[in-house]
């Protein structure tokens, strides 16, 4: 996004414009966008922007940037750096050293800190409280070892993992800290380790070296003081960026004379695109901006050496300040689950109350005879005087019983579930990352899971918000058409693929790196018809394309020594496409240095003085360059977005050309091309003088420089003569139309948010199958609040007429063929009014209602923060899951706002990726991501949660029933070791394995029938109904498992350990078979997990019973010899699972859901018929 007056000037140092600075700094989340120069996005007024930031729409805490915008750096805020005098610099202020330490712990702090961090999780605190409770002698239920073991185990494993990660960080830090840099010391540059570098020291960097700290550039090998850096480590952009030394310091070098001076700069902050400082050198006060600073982590390129002074070091460098992890989100399923956990905790309290009530009644009943009850042993007679032993009266007895019940029934709250969920998500992420279907060949990038806790959200998405450029399209600009002097030259029709234009320099052939198809007629005219009227137009047009940009040409060697390539480095793909186009027609930009450019025009090198350059900004949406031509004339070339540039064209001149150009522009944009208008004007000497003095004054102004410069630009960019227009194609990415169609079939509403103008957006909408001809389009494009409100109301009533009512919501969801489909197209200006505060409530609601009736929403001309606003609009009013996908820094706010943010690791740096939860190479990977992995992950996780509730609750109920037969004293028949191992070993692995590996349907089926995705949207796998059914089943199963053995052993000699072992084994088999019954796909891992668990349980029970000093020694072997044991086991398992089986069968057979049908079809191969019916339906949709 290019916003208001904040454009960061990184223009090549024009002689007159000797410096540039950024008066405004932006929070990082937005800042990345500021550097982009393409005519892509619409700006939003500052007021709006400020408001949004205040409301905390962007990452909080950065709003002070705005308030500081127009102020000079006040002394107390400043950081004073004495150049080449580190002692004095560090005397007053304690700046951080350059040593970086990303490791969290040291050897001493590891234990306390790591524990502290681990106990931030509520689950662990719960564990701990229970364990501590168990240490109180009066209520100790379990032995010390058994009660602490699970917590200790989890803590230990996590600590080992953390320690290993930290060790690796320390190793990396050490390597980093011990790298060497050349630092000026005692009269020469000496090698010094990075960690010893201090603020104020002068450092020399050689080509291809990495910068050790943030430095203000003083001089470089280039006499004009230009140095090129690559910021790939910082923001992932691989192009070269020019940084400039101040003219006053370029001549100085420490070798020749002592550099002195004073830099007052702002406090360290995270904004990598902003820097504000003043430099005092030789009694002159200069201002420094972001183009004067080179940052830690960048690499020096194409420059032999550069000298700078360290201003930020170590952890205060911008690179370090920006190294923060991905934001943590919580999946909706987990939020949902927490509600059920609250219900479970009520169950827990209920059980404990029941037990303590029972105990109260029992104690009351026998209160008088307690002394003589043999098994109670109330009094201690070992001493002379008998006194009560461990009995504190009726009330305390009840209280202790309650606490003991909490300890015994603790696993009712499935704490282990949180750990299992984390493991399962890691497993799921492993498979997502390794999916070959989501590997992007072109960029050699895999799918990336940056957020680990929202995997299952991918299966419930209802809204997809997509950026257009770079997300739907490739962001590879291709020059397609040009309208020059009112004549349309179309590359598509008559194209010839030649070798392209070449130039011979010093016997070497220079070629542009990218060759494009040329239009033969245009080529002929460009080369020969220079004197004709059309020829002059073409000359100026091509010269404007070649010169009116900020590209830097580099010469690249090829394998053939005689051939060199010219590579245009710049930040805007549009500019590159235009420059390559100009080169193809013989206008090749050869050289750019500060002050002049060299353009090879049809083999003849011509030098133009760049007298001034007005950067692109989002208000003007155009840029201009003032060229001093070889013939001493001064010309202004302007190129920019049609809306704003046409308005500064003098329409009285050559009316027919203007008209023709406008017509062409319209046809271009309806073809989906990105359009730019090019214009020019010759400046008379007086005009030039006037401009020059204004420009000089503005560019040296200390206050309000940006605004002044803009004013100068607006003044000079007027009364232009139109030269023509260009049409650049941004190709759709592979598979985008199909992907969008599938997403829509899956019941996902696709919203496209783009900075393009309406016509372009609509045409892209058609080509990406977002829009289809049978849709009714509602277009809202207004210039005032009132009209906007009115058209919104009209549109709403119209939509209500077309689509009867919201009660048919479910009808809408099943995108049925005959349904009238609506498409809403709304533009940025209208959105501003809608999202504006005053009207917000009512208008937003209307917009939301309208939008929810539409199956497609296209927002054009939107600014980044508006994108977030739109996402927020939907998010606030519905519980439906939203997903935002984008590739550029302008999508960051939207990505962070949505429930799931997906970054495309494409052409536009890594800002979006850094802010995203998942990143991938192509838009079409959304299909496997959502329809396949999302679907699977949701089903798996939802089932796992329900199952974990069940498996813990059934065990707790089992213990509860026994408590009723022990005079409510919480004796456990099941050994304490078994009850601790139950959720760790006996039943944990199968659910994790199933959570990672089970698949209800194959990938092919899911991709072929996107509507199967609906089960996640309808929350079919996890809802209150399932929860309560499960709880009833749990109750039933626990009753069966408990009472059948109880009645069978009534009046028998069975001892507590034997019966406990029977219950343990029975419940583990029941719980595992319950899972086995629900597994959809049995592969060897599942088999191993489930049967292995049962076997492991038996082994554990045997091992525990083989320890002679434990209570239940040899019990399992005794009871295992009796036939009663085995007959009981058989009937318990069958009787416990039969109802579930029955209900499952009935449901599957008589109320099959889509997934069930699809599974059967998959198995019995009846999908041929499905295809047929599918086909019919699509036909119906088309008609």
């Amino acid at each position, binding site marked *: 996004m290019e916003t208001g007056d904040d454009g960061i000037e990184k223009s090549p140092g024009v002689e007159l414009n000797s410096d540039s600075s950024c008066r405004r700094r932006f929070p990082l989340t937005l800042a990345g966008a500021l550097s982009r120069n393409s005519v892509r996005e619409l700006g939003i007024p500052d007021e709006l922007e400020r408001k949004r930031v205040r409301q905390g729409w962007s990452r909080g805490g950065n709003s002070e940037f705005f308030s500081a915008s127009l102020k000079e750096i006040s002394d107390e805020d400043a950081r004073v750096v004495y150049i080449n005098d580190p002692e004095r610099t560090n005397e007053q202020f304690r700046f951080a050293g350059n040593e970086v330490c990303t490791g969290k712990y040291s050897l001493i702090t590891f234990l306390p800190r790591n524990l502290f961090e681990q106990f931030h999780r509520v689950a662990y605190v719960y564990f701990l409280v229970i364990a501590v409770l168990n240490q109180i002698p009066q209520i100790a239920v379990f032995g010390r070892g058994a009660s602490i073991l699970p917590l200790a185990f989890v803590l230990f494993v996590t600590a080992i993992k953390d320690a290993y990660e930290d060790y690796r960080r320390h190793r990396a830090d050490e390597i980093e800290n011990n790298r060497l840099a050349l630092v000026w010391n005692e009269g020469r540059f000496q090698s010094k380790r990075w960690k010893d570098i201090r603020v104020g020291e002068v450092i020399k960097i050689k080509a291809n070296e990495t910068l050790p700290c943030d430095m203000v550039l003083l001089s470089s090998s280039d006499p004009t003081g230009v140095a090129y850096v690559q910021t790939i480590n910082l923001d992932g952009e691989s192009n070269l960026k020019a940084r400039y030394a101040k003219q006053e310091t370029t001549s100085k070098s420490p070798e020749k004379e002592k550099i002195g001076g004073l830099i007052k700069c702002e406090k360290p902050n995270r904004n990598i695109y902003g820097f504000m400082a003043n430099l005092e050198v030789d009694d002159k006060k200069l201002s420094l901006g972001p183009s004067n600073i080179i940052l830690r982590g960048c690499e020096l390129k194409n420059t032999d050496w550069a000298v700078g002074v360290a201003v930020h070091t170590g952890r205060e460098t911008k690179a370090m300040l920006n190294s923060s992890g991905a934001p943590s989100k919580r999946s909706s399923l987990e939020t949902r689950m927490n509600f059920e956990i609250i219900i479970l905790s009520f169950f827990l309290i209920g059980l404990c109350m029941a037990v303590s009530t029972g105990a109260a009644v029992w104690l009351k009943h026998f209160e008088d005879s307690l002394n003589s009850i*043999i098994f109670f042993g109330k009094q201690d007679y070992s001493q002379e005087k008998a006194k009560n032993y461990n009995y504190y009266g009726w009330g305390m007895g009840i209280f202790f019983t309650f606490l003991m019940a909490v300890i015994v029934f603790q696993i009712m709250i499935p704490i282990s579930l949180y750990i299992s969920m984390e493991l399962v998500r890691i497993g799921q992420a492993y498979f997502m990352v390794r999916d070959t279907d989501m*590997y992007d060949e072109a960029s050699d990038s895999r799918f990336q899971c940056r957020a680990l806790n929202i995997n299952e959200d991918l299966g419930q998405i209802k809204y997809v918000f997509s950026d257009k450029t770079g997300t739907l399209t490739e962001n590879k600009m291709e020059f397609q058409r040009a309208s020059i002097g009112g004549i349309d030259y179309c590359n598509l029709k008559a194209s010839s693929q030649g070798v392209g234009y070449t130039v011979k320099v010093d016997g070497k052939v220079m070629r542009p790196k990218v060759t494009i198809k040329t239009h033969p007629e245009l080529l002929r005219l460009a080369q020969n018809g220079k004197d004709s009227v059309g020829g002059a137009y073409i000359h100026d047009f091509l010269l404007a394309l070649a010169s009116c940009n900020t590209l830097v040409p580099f010469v690249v060697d090829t394998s053939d020594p005689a051939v060199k390539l010219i590579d245009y480095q710049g930040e805007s793909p549009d500019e590159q496409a235009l420059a390559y186009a100009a080169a193809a027609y013989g206008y090749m930009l050869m050289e750019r240095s500060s002050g002049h450019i060299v353009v090879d025009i049809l083999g003849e090198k011509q030098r133009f003085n760049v007298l001034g350059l007005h950067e692109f900004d989002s208000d003007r949406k155009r840029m201009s360059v003032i060229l001093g031509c070889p013939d001493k004339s001064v010309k202004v070339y302007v190129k920019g977005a049609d809306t704003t540039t046409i308005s500064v064209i003098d329409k009285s001149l050559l009316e027919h050309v203007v008209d023709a150009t406008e017509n062409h522009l319209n046809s271009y944009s309806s073809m989906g091309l990105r359009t730019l208008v090019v214009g020019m004007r010759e400046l008379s000497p007086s005009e030039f003088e006037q401009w020059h003095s204004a420009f000089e004054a503005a560019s040296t102004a200390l206050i309000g420089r940006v605004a002044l410069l803009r004013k100068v630009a607006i003044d000079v960019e007027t009364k232009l003569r139109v030269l023509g227009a260009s049409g650049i194609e941004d190709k759709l990415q592979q598979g985008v139309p199909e992907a969008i169609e599938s997403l829509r079939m899956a019941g996902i509403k696709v919203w496209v948010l783009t900075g393009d103008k309406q016509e372009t957006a609509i045409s892209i909408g058609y080509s990406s199958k977002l829009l289809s001809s049978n849709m009714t389009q509602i277009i809202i494009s207004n210039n005032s609040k009132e009209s906007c409100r009115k058209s919104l109301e009209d549109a709403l009533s119209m939509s209500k007429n077309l689509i009867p009512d919201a009660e048919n919501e479910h009808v809408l969801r099943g995108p049925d063929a005959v349904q009238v489909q609506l498409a809403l197209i709304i533009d940025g200006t209208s959105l501003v009014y809608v999202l504006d505060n005053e009207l917000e409530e009512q208008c937003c609601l209307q917009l939301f209602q309208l939008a929810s009736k539409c199956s497609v929403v296209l927002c054009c001309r939107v600014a980044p923060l508006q994108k977030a606003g739109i996402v927020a609009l939907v998010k606030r009013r519905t519980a439906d899951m939203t997903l935002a996908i984008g590739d550029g820094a302008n999508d960051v706010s939207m990505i962070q706002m949505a429930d799931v943010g997906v970054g495309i690791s494409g*052409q536009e740096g890594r800002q979006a990726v850094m802010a995203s939860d998942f990143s991938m190479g192509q838009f079409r990977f959304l299909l496997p991501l959502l329809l396949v992995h999302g679907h699977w992950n949701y089903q798996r996780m939802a089932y796992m949660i329900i199952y974990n509730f069940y498996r813990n609750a059934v065990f707790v109920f089992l213990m509860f029933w026994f408590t009723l037969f022990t005079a409510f004293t919480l004796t456990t028949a099941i050994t304490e070791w078994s009850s601790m191992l139950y959720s760790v070993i006996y039943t944990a692995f199968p659910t994790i394995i199933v959570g990672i590996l089970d698949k209800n349907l194959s990938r092919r089926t899911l991709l072929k029938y996107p509507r199967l995705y609906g089960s996640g949207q309808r929350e079919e796998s996890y809802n209150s109904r399932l929860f309560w059914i499960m709880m009833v089943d749990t109750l039933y199963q626990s009753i069966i498992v408990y009472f059948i053995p109880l009645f069978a052993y009534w009046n028998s000699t069975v001892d507590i350990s034997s019966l406990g072992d029977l219950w343990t084994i029975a419940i583990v088999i029941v719980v595992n078979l319950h899972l086995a019954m629900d597994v959809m796909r049995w592969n060897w891992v599942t088999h191993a997990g489930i049967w292995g668990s049962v076997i492991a349980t038996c082994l554990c029970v045997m091992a525990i019973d083989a320890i002679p000093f434990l209570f239940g020694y040899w019990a399992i072997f005794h009871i295992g010899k009796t036939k009663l044991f085995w007959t009981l086991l058989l*009937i318990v398992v069958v009787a416990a699972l039969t109802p579930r089986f029955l209900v499952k069968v009935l449901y599957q057979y008589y109320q099959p859901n889509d997934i069930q049908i699809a599974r059967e079809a998959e198995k019995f191969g009846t999908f041929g018929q499905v295809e047929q019916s599918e086909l019919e339906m699509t036909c119906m949709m088309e008609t």
Partner: protein
Amino acid sequence: MSSTNNAPPSTAAASKRPKYSKFTQQELPACKPILTPRWVISAFMLISIIFVPIGVAALFASRDVIEIVDRYDSVCVPANETDKVKYIQTPGFKTCNRTLTVPKHMKPPIFVYYQLDNFYQNHRRYVKSRNDQQLRDSKEANSVSGCKPEDYNNNSAIVPCGLIAWSLFNDTYSFSRKNVPLNVSKKDISWKSDREHKFGKDVYPQNFQSGSLIGGAKLDSSIPLSEQEDLVVWMRTAALPTFRKLYGRIEVELQENDVIDVTLGNNYNTYSFNGKKKLVISTTSWLGGKNDFLGIAYLTVGGLCFFLAVMFTIIYLVKPRQLGDPSYLSWNRNPGWH
């Protein structure tokens, strides 16, 4: 920007493309079970075929067991004693005579049990009140942790300590038939594993039942714990508040209508908590004692499954559904929209 990035060429060599394997692509060969009607009906049928015979066999086994149960706790207190608790607490051996009639021919081994009702041997305070180290190791005589309140007496450790041992059952039974004493074998009534590993051969009772309050039986301090089988049986605490413990075995046949005279020593106090005491003489079957529950349960489940199998067959024949028929898909099911 076009293909002009300066990406280091090294990436070309090491592509990040994930290696293909059936595992990583989640395509391991797998079985996909579908509950087809045939499958379901045969499963229910199979269960009923297995369960009904087992149920019948279990019921027969239970019917074959001959059991004589005699509750004696109230009848063995003289009618003139109003306070049963006081009666039982007075020192001295209290004898009581009972006569039992054998209802059917009983083949040895005939087991003699005592049954206690409402006695919570699984009470938390009771279960924990023992020390297994002390029981098996003569060197650990002083480890009495957990044995409170029966750990020390006159400041010396009790072996075996704890409430369980202290409350050892002390009613005795002697049987005679036609004035000929019936021998009750008390050998091997406890678990072999307990005698060999849990109770030490060299651990002798010390200081046992020497306190002011006597809980139950006394032990002969010259016999090691491993041979005190009544104690070993008693220390295997029962799971449920109604339980039997093996008292001994009668190794001779008992004929129908034999009259057995029992002379019992009624010493054990269950009166303070309304506990019942019963003498049980019983044979066993392959399934254990007399209990019809299991047989009935098997027959119920088996019968239910048979019923379900028949039901499903009928439903299947009357209203079949073609599996995998796409017309059942939700989006194909509602053709009537608009």
